[in-house]
């Protein structure tokens, strides 16, 4: 932990520049590339657009003073999962896939589902407005990682808020990994 960063004067010095611009820029990039993801016929183009989306969202996390989440987003999603996505997509015969009519016939259902989800979001925001804070909470950026650690694992002998849920999730992932190995490996 860099003690210099705890200095409040330092945080005052590093006040963010042009926040609205970056917010709209990143949000716009996320939305536009998100549209590209679903409209491109070429799966690799879609995957690349998805990477842009993920990176934009990582940028938004940074603006929310959640650098750890942003970093993990880049490592896990943009760097790891998307590489594996591309890995698989590259091996698929793209020209043939783009000619196939796979899910195109069910698009009304998809639209319906998307609208329902949108309605859910809107209603949650409208109805739960009283529960949401009306201003962004200003958290100290420098201790973000430590706070996450405290929430997940607890600190100073106290069990963390989400320790149990976190461990359950990791167990689930472990089971998923084993399942994947068993399913793909012909003989173990």
């Amino acid at each position: 932990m860099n003690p210099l960063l705890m200095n409040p004067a330092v945080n005052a010095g590093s006040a963010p520049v042009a926040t609205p611009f970056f917010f709209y820029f990143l949000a716009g990039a996320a939305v536009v590339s998100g549209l590209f993801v679903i409209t491109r016929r070429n799966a690799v183009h879609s995957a690349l657009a998805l990477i842009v989306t993920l990176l934009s969202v990582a940028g938004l996390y940074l603006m929310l003073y959640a650098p750890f989440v942003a970093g993990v987003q880049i490592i896990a999603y943009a760097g790891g999962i998307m590489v594996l996505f591309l890995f698989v997509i590259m091996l698929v015969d793209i020209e043939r896939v783009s000619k196939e009519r796979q899910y195109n016939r069910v698009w009304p259902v998809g639209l319906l589902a998307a609208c329902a989800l949108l309605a859910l979001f809107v209603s949650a925001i409208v109805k739960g407005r009283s529960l949401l804070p009306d201003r962004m909470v200003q958290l100290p950026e420098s201790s973000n990682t430590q706070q996450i650690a405290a929430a997940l694992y607890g600190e100073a002998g106290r069990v963390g808020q989400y320790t149990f849920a976190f461990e359950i999730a990791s167990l689930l992932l472990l089971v998923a990994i084993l399942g994947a190995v068993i399913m793909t490996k012909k003989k173990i």
Partner: protein
Amino acid sequence: MNDEKTLDPKMIASKPLDPKTIAERVPGTAGSSLTRPNAASSNLDLDAPDKPYLDSNELIINMGPQHPATHGVLRVILKLDGEKVLGTECVIGYLHRGIEKIAENRTYTMFNPYVDRMDYCAAVSNGLGYCEAVEKLMNVEAPPRAQYIRVILTELQRIASHQLWLGTHALDIGAMTPLFYTFRDREEILKIFEKYCGARLTTHAFRIGGCQYEIYPGFEKDVKNFLTFVAPKIDEYETLLTTNRIWLERTKNVGVISGKDAIALGVTGPVLRASGVKWDIRKAVPYANYSKFDFEIPVGSNGDTYDRYLVRMAEMRQSLRIVEQAINGIPEGPIMAKVPKVIKPPVGEIYHSIEAPKGELGFFIVSDGSTQPYRLRVRPPSFVNLQALDLMVRGALVADVVAVIGTFDIVLGEVDR
């Protein structure tokens, strides 16, 4: 693959090979592949119909004819499952010059320089094989002094050929440095050749009936200097590679061929000896005075790439021994047997073979009594050895294909003639 359009549609194979047959062909898994009637050539199913949707596992790759690791213009069509090789097919002939047809239109003397152009990495050995075959056809024998000179030059050529092989083979496996070391030392041999006959690569050193040139003054000193110079250099190559962990992993149990399979496939030379068959024409059917020299035949046991490497390294040392004995015992006397100016062998046919650096190099000559061979057939070691490629790389990875092509020590000039 998404680039079907660029390929001939026929090239896309669909039916995966039956895994059982692949297992049978993988060396060491189940019996000898060679009992199967069609274990070679046409194993790629290239004419099969288009592959099914999303079957993305198989990939047809053309390795060569322009490829850094095929030692010339060899083209290997690889059928891959990911990185694993399901089958190969060699396409050769890109360097075909019709040497055998040329021979029928040249006199015996005129054809002599052409043989140098077959295995251009071991031109002296080719010349020896051809000259001895014609001498045998005429029933003459080169005088002892000429034979000693021939042995010295041929064994030097063997070392040079093995050095060239070592450098390029190591480069194929990714070690850059040995290439430059071997070329540095090969240079000394080429200098001796140049001093002796004026040419470095395609030497045309021997004539039918003996040698054209007497050894130059200082030849013995040059050769002896070379012997003391190169022995530690061979150790140097070995320190770079023999115990190198990556080298061991890349060569051990790669491209394994059993002695039985090697004999059945007609594989000769170091490749055969590495499989444990102690057979060297210099010992089995001695020619050119080889029976007078004391040397050993290095043999391997596993028949893998590493053994072939060790065998060739040992062969270089044995060649040094032969050269040393020969240079100390050059007899006095003529260097040319009594052969007529116009060479006109009697009607008949002859097969004569020598142990070239790459294997058995044979010449089958049919004479009709004229000044030109009626039929001249070359039995090229590289050509025959290359047939074993498919057996040796089945089930291996792409990187092993490169290693195995390197370990054959093929020269495309000889494969294609």
